[in-house]
């Protein structure tokens, strides 16, 4: 399965090894892991809860993957996104892409995480000393996603 939404953590090494096994045409594999930070702005974050829209989330991720495969020649794509309550340092998301050439791997990996951040229905609730706070969407994420439209 190239797209998974799960509570459990993932083993980066095992996932990447499974993804590339037997595919000897791969020259480069780019991956991105997003982690829970212990600060947001000036506030300490004790934990973060990730909510999603079961069904639509997987569907959106599949569409984003399909779009990446239209734009680049890819040998493998993997998207894992965790949901539930996570602590600082915990892994949230893994995006990995493999291609014959490194530029395609890097670009498609960035594309996937940029679009995931603005299109896939996930929401973050941070636990701060002042209580729970829903994370606001970031203008910088919108800008990062838009550069893939202009091209």
């Amino acid at each position, binding site marked *: 399965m190239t797209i998974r939404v799960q509570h459990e953590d993932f083993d980066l090494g095992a996932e990447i090894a499974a993804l590339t096994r037997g595919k000897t045409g791969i020259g480069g594999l780019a991956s991105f892991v*997003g982690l829970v930070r212990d600060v947001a702005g000036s506030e300490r974050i004790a934990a973060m809860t*990730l*909510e*999603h*829209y079961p*069904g*639509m989330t997987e*569907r959106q991720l599949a569409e984003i993957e399909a779009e990446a495969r239209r734009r680049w020649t890819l040998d493998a794509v993997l998207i894992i*996104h965790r949901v539930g309550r996570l602590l600082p340092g915990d892994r*949230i*998301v893994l995006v990995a892409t493999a291609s014959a050439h490194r530029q395609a791997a890097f670009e498609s990996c960035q594309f996937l*995480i940029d679009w*995931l*951040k*603005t*299109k*896939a*229905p*996930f*929401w*973050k*609730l941070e636990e701060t000393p002042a209580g729970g706070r*829903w*994370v*606001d*969407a*970031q203008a910088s*994420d919108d800008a990062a996603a838009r550069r893939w439209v202009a091209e």
Partner: protein
Amino acid sequence: MKILYFAWLRAKIGKAEEEIELPTDVTTVAGLLDWLKARGPGFAEALKDQRVVRVAVNQHYVGWDHRLQSTDEVALFPPVTGG
């Protein structure tokens, strides 16, 4: 029609989902939001700034003009913040 609410929209409205009987004069997403806003202070508060409300019908993003069917699954949620 099934309606789902997520994140702070769910928190403000006070429920994650409900079944509603769509009034016959409500035919679009914009009409649905206007109708929902009149259902109580939680709805009015949650939906007062539509720039931060995203709508999906049958798990696809749609615009305010999208025409609704009584069998649709409609979801209302804030801009996404995953990743």
